[in-house]
């Protein structure tokens, strides 16, 4: 395997060039691209004959053309050949704004970035992490500032990372199969909404605000924690009976739990019933979502690499052996399950405040399939895998949106292929080493 890797690196200089770039160079390159788009994007897009800036690196534009071809084949509107020109225009746009400037930047500053990171590698991790995350946030901020669509896609993608990670604790690290995650999300979403809407907002369903306070957004962390705690409190209902036995028991109990939660929110008229709750204050801005998700990833990563996480893996691999090695299996499983439910609740609270509307129908079996797809696509037992799975499935979902219903053929097919060729997901069982991720890349 190692020989193969070095061989391919020798034969492919481009691959060698890119693998020698540290994270910092990628982020700075992204910053250059985003800044270029902000300054020249609209002018260039108009010059290329596009009506507006391609929102998702031209993928969307391409699929829009494909969709209109399919539509005309199925007897819809007549396909205009001039639409085909959109594809090369979008390609040239992406090339001019992102690919070429970033490549140029890598060529000029790649080595400098590497030595900068090497110089910083003796500093505490918090310094390097803060630097990287600040640049990452600026890229996100500038890129998402171009359109509201990008902003909401980015926010939902970040939330998807948190949900996927929290499910990966249970399905990957603990090796059980939990189906109740949309239920926990619903509990968190309603809990956080009750906190924010009930206390601070004049609402039709929940009545007049209890407190009038201009700085009420400062309580948003409390709202999220409240939602998370409610989710993990209800998770106890599943956890107490189902960790007596192993096997598929949790899958079934949690499925019944999901139906119960959904039916509960559909029937409680005091919380809007099937019409749902709306009027959440606009507290979940991009920085807030970014901070919460980064904190979540950081805490979950610390959890799974801690003694408790190792114990969890031991329980997954062999429960009796783990017990013989003095692991308190029941306590370990309970803690991990409640922890996963807590973060799912926090993600649900964020979700409710990003959309500023929740209804029970959002948290059904469809959502379950989506979250499971993210976990199993990215890879079990791996923080990297969760991040990659969540990002790729949400980006794919948005990119294939113009295809309409054919999207629901493409994504499942892709997932089936991944399952057949890599049954545990693309990046399963990888360690998530922040220090080496932000560290310098050695020249081969």
């Amino acid at each position, binding site marked *: 395997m190692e020989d193969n890797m070095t061989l391919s690196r020798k034969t492919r200089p481009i691959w060698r060039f890119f693998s020698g770039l540290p994270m910092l160079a990628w982020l700075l390159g992204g910053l250059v691209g985003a800044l270029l788009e902000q300054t020249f994007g609209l002018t260039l897009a108009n010059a290329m004959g596009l009506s507006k800036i391609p929102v998702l690196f031209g993928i969307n534009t391409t699929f829009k053309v494909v969709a209109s071809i399919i539509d005309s084949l199925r007897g819809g509107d007549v396909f205009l050949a001039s639409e085909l020109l959109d594809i090369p225009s979008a390609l040239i746009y992406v090339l001019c704004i992102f690919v070429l400037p970033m490549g140029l930047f890598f060529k000029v500053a790649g080595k400098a970035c590497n030595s900068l990171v090497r110089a910083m590698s003796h500093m505490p991790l918090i310094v390097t992490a803060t630097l990287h995350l600040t640049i990452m946030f600026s890229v996100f901020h500038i890129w998402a500032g171009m359109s509201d669509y990008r902003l909401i896609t980015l926010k939902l993608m970040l939330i998807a990372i948190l949900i996927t990670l929290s499910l990966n604790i249970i*399905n990957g690290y603990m*090796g059980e*199969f939990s189906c109740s995650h949309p239920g926990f999300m619903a509990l968190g979403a309603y809990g956080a909404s009750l906190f924010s809407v009930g206390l601070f907002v004049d609402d039709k369903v929940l009545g007049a605000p209890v407190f009038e306070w201009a700085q009420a957004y400062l309580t948003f962390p409390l709202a999220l924690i409240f939602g998370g705690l409610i989710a993990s409190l209800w998770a106890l209902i599943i956890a107490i*009976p189902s960790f*007596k*036995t*192993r*096997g*598929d*028991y949790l899958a*079934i*109990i949690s*499925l*019944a*739990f999901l*139906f*119960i939660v959904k*039916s*509960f929110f*559909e*029937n409680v008229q005091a919380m809007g019933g099937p019409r749902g709750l709306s009027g959440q204050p606009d507290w979940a801005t991009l920085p807030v979502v970014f901070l919460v998700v980064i904190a979540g990833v950081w805490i979950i990563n610390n959890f799974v690499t801690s003694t408790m996480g190792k114990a969890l893996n031991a329980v997954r691999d*062999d*429960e*009796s052996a783990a017990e013989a090695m003095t692991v308190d299996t029941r306590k370990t499983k309970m803690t991990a399950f409640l922890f996963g439910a807590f973060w799912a609740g926090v993600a649900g609270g964020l979700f409710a405040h990003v959309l500023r509307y929740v209804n029970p129908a959002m948290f059904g*079996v469809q959502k379950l*399939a989506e979250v*499971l*797809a993210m976990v*199993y696509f990215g890879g*079990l037992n791996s923080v990297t895998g969760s991040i990659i799975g969540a990002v790729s499935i949400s980006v794919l979902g948005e990119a294939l949106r113009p295809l309409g*219903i*054919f999207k*629901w*053929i493409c994504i*499942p*097919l892709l*997932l*089936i292929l991944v*399952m*057949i060729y890599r*049954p*545990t997901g693309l990046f399963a069982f990888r360690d998530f080493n922040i220090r080496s991720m932000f560290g310098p890349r050695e020249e081969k």
Partner: protein
Amino acid sequence: MSITFLFQNLVNALQWGSFYALIALGYSMVYSILMLFNFAHGDIFMIGAYIGLGVAMSLLALVGTGAAAILPGWAILVLTILISMFLTSFVGVFVERVGYRPLRNAPRASAAITGLMIGIILETGILIFLGAERLKFPQLIESTTYNLGGVFVTNKKIMIVLVSISLMLALHQFVKRTKYGMAMRAMAFDFAVVPLMGVPLNTIAAMTFGIGSALAAAAGILFGLAYPVLDPYMGVTFGWKAFVAAILGGRGSIMGACVAGFMLGFIEVMVVPLIMVVNKLFDMNIGSNLRDLIAYSIILVILIYRPHGLFGESYSSKLRL
């Protein structure tokens, strides 16, 4: 509230129970052999209903309708059920071949994911080919209502219950009496050793999927007769409920799946009069749409006290994972 009202609900419960039981059988049989749940089964039920619609339409076109018909309605119905069961079993075999056989040695959760995804593909496929509007299932037999001492029973309800019970009995005979049935029982007993004795694993697994799908198709047609509106997402709700019934009966138990299917139908239908009684007695105002919540809570409580279902057996702490 009277005794006739109770019996009326009992008749409805029997009808719903037979749908659930027929679908739950498919889940349970696959579980008993491969130790995994076929999450695409609910959508196979839906596909079965659509295949039944197609077969019924083409048969009607072939023999003519109304007074000029060559065959009476019940004969067309029997033919429809048999032909659609045969055709749908190939859908089941196809699902096994594509989604489950390549993952035989993979973690079981991965196979669950492929099952879910195949289900989504089947739903979307129907949406693409037939459009989003709901289709009407042709009424093959005249509906007559009998009044049995205040309890109204239609001939369709009687037929549905009779057909499903006879299918269950036929399955029971197949599993107990034939050589293939014996192979299935042996495979359920020991998945690892029995193939070494010369029993072809792939054939038996495919056959199990086929039989389960055929039963689901029968359930789909019977459902189409009782509630003649088909939509592509009907498999989702039905499938998950039948899945819960299969669990309640005990994983891998055919008898359990039948009993629990009828029990689930019974619970679901009986919760509504129960709510009415409670409302009257305690002067409360509970909505009858709390049905799902109460039904699943009852199931949850049953499962807490009987973790392996009604007829299931406890197994060792570790299965193939």
